[in-house]
């Protein structure tokens, strides 16, 4: 008989034991079905969302291009609707998706909010959490790993077989790593097939210009999850080695699970909120408004900023009234107003976003104590359902809005006569080919490099947990109590 490494033997024994426990096979089957099922549900949901959003986007574009000849400022108020697209990997982990607005109305002078998130359309049930493959992998699989792993060493001690194992020359480290390997192997029976099939789903996306990026992100994601399960296997075996009895081992592990998935996330949310409170909409809006009024109110004929602007124009062109300027004066004023108000809005928006980032930083700090939070953040980031992806969409739509408003203002400045009294004047109409020449809105997702660099922190936390687990198992392997 060939001698095999004791680690492999021990691991195989764990796997066999788990497989022959009553209910284990059913659990493995259920978990596989749940994971694959919810990935498919998420995938269909994603495709339906994309189909709808593209349809709406095309309608909006068509209406825009077919708008009849009119004054450009009317087009600036007609504005644009942009719909948020989802990243191809979002079927894997819904992340914040349900809390993010799906449509923004873009118009001149005004930054509207992103509306109609799924949460807006849900009753309290969403608050219990959402099932996605990510949620199952983050919360339910760990629970099973703990249930399978809590007695891996205590049971041997209670049965007296631990003595025999050591007597046979098994080293402490071999024992621990063998058990960990077996438990990790068992966790693969839950997630292995779904992870492979999930990857396959990527090839069925109707539009897959992002296939390369998604594939890489998926692989990193899958590796991160495997690391997470390895950490959990280490935690369970170490707790089992340290515990007096199977009962106390199970209690400790359930305690860890509650701490990781429930207590630390909630507490860090509370801390984040109290350390870095963010303004409410009304506070934000009034602060922006006050500053804009201070800079100059384009609607106030006596406003000093705009009076100075007018004087300098009259002087430069050596005319005595704005009607005699060689370009459309009111368009010029609006362009200036749009520039100033957008600048102000963006500076406040930047501050707000910094507050949000500070709040998130608290959560990221808490993730050092909590591998669940670390994988949750990494998983959202890599699935493209995190705040960074959302902010990028909002930033893109804001710059599109600004471009739209200023393009219309420039058309007015260049092409509309200064003597036109109202926007209804037939001579103030521009032909519709001007509308066609303005490009459509195309949402860009964050590129691979940025996604990875955003999540390098949380991946590092997982790596350190792994290293710490291995170190602890080496350190502790000499101290396992035999009886």
């Amino acid at each position, binding site marked *: 008989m060939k001698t095999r490494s004791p680690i492999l033997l021990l691991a195989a024994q764990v796997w066999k034991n788990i497989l022959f426990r009553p209910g284990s096979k059913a659990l493995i089957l259920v978990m596989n079905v749940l994971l694959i099922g919810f990935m498919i549900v998420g995938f269909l949901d994603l495709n339906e969302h994309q189909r709808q959003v593209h349809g709406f986007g095309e309608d909006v574009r068509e209406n825009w291009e077919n708008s009849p000849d009119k004054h450009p400022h009317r087009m600036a108020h007609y504005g644009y609707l942009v719909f948020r697209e989802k990243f191809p990997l979002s079927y894997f982990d819904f992340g914040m998706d349900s809390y993010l607005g799906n*449509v923004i109305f873009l118009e001149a002078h005004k930054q509207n909010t992103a509306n109609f998130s799924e949460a807006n359309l849900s009753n309290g*049930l969403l608050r219990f959490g959402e099932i996605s493959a990510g949620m199952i992998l983050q919360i339910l699989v760990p629970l099973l790993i703990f249930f399978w792993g809590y007695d891996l060493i205590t049971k041997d001690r209670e049965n007296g077989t631990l003595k025999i194992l050591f007597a046979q020359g098994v080293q402490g480290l071999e024992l621990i790593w063998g058990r960990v390997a077996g438990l990790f192997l068992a966790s693969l029976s839950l997630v292995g097939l779904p992870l492979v099939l999930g990857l396959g789903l990527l090839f069925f996306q109707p539009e897959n210009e992002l296939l390369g990026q998604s594939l890489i992100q998926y692989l990193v994601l899958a590796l991160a999850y495997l690391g997470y399960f390895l950490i959990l296997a280490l935690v369970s075996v170490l707790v089992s080695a340290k515990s007096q009895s199977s009962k106390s081992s199970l209690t400790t592990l359930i305690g860890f699970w509650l701490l990781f998935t429930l207590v630390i996330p909630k*507490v860090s949310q509370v801390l984040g909120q109290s350390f870095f409170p963010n303004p*409410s909409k009304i506070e934000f809006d009034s602060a922006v408004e006050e500053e804009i009024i201070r800079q100059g109110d384009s609607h106030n004929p006596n406003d000093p900023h705009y009076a100075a602007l007018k004087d300098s124009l009259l002087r430069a062109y050596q005319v005595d009234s704005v009607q005699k300027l060689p370009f459309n004066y009111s368009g010029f004023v609006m362009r200036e107003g749009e520039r100033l108000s957008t600048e102000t809005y963006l500076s406040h928006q930047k501050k707000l976003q910094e507050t949000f980032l500070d709040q998130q930083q608290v959560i990221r700090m808490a993730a050092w104590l909590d591998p669940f939070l670390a994988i949750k953040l990494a998983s959202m980031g890599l699935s493209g359902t995190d705040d960074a992806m959302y902010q990028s969409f909002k930033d893109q739509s804001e710059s599109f809005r600004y471009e739209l408003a200023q393009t219309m203002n420039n058309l007015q400045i260049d092409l509309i006569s200064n003597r036109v009294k*109202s926007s209804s004047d037939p001579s103030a109409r521009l032909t519709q080919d001007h509308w066609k020449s303005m490009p459509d809105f195309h949402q860009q997702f964050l590129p691979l490099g940025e996604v990875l660099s955003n999540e390098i922190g949380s991946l590092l936390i997982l790596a350190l947990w792994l290293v710490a687990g291995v170190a602890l198992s080496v350190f502790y392997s000499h101290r396992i109590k035999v009886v």
Partner: protein
Amino acid sequence: MIKYLFTDFYRSKAHSIGLLLLLVAGLVSLEIGSRFLERAERVSEKTAAHQAESIQRNVSHSTGELGLLMYYQRFGLENEVPRLAGLSIGQRDIYPSVQSVNVRNLEEQRYSTDLMNPLFQLLGNMDFSFVLIYFFPLVIVAFGFNLVSEEREGGTWSLVLSQTDSPMDFLRCKLAIRLLGVLAVLVLLLAVAVFYLDIPLDSFFWAFGVIAVAYVLFWFALVWLVVSFQLSSNLNAQILLACWVFLNLIIPAGINVVQRWAFPIPEAMTAVIENREGYHAQWDREKEPTLEHFYSKYPQYGEFQHPKDQDFSWLWYFAMQQLGDDEARKSVKEMRGKLEQRMEMASKVSWLVPTVHTQLSLNSASFSDMGNYLQYMGALEDFHEAKKGYFFPLIFEEKSVFEMDWDGFALESFRDQHPVQWIGILAPFILSVLVLLLWANRNYTKSGIYSNGK
């Protein structure tokens, strides 16, 4: 013997720690509730102040043209936040508590959202309802999972049998002591909440308390049932934890998925598109049909006419705006219908899922559910109509801004009201507790524990 059981219960460090944890988590949740209420108050004060200022500023910058002023001027309607909402924040952190609208089309204005960190919304508030629904059962399970098995496994069960005529009474006493401990913490927390959050002792508060107690009773009944199978401590713990995972994580999330699939709401987006087209298309059309539509909707304005020689009048402008709302009306109504269907489905399913029933009834008692939001949306429509009804005639008869009294336009507030649905609240609890107890009783009878083995 009861005295002994009491001492036994409180001497165990784990039991005191369990109760203490609930107390601490509960107190933290009250602090969170109080901050939530403070923020809502601040928003309301700020909005009121801002509204007064903006009226003053707009009037002082005005050329006298009322139509132009009313293009900008917004008026706020607050969705009053009852103090009880501090205990169950529900959907209140998703829907803003105030919306300010001008007399232009409503659809474009009424869905704007508050500034919230989506990561925080995802992680959720640790409000009192969360502590109750998630934490209380864990402690109840920890207290009860080895009610019989610890005596068996500790070898004391035969002592119990030999020293009491009725082991059932012994077990009931043991469980009752644990129940009293948990209820004491619950009552203490609610009492603190009344003072700390300044909650009025109205029927909603009592309903809230009754729901909380009923929920605790449900979990004790479930523990009583699982224990009645007389399995090992380990197995009991696993079964009860599995129940917790299913009732608090998997089933509610599953219902949510079904709800989304059964009632998708593309109408939300369609309404936005229709609203925008409905209004803007009017600019390029003949004015008569737009005005005709307006007159048929509001015959009382028939006396006002668009001046034939002019390109623009406020009458025509607001008639165009009206079409924005009216074009989207069908989709908006369908959206509301779907939302109601989602609510109805959840409330039906919740009969079978006490955790969901508890959350929905707590949210409903504290007016932080979707029902409240829909009521508020209705109130906002009425508010908007009332403002139009007041200002339109003045705008159309070209009354000067300076001839008007601008004092009476403070922030208004909507108070949602519905009676407490006692039967709807209690029946699912009574039903589930009854089923659990009867089932448990059957198990105990079968096991012969009643007759003490004789």
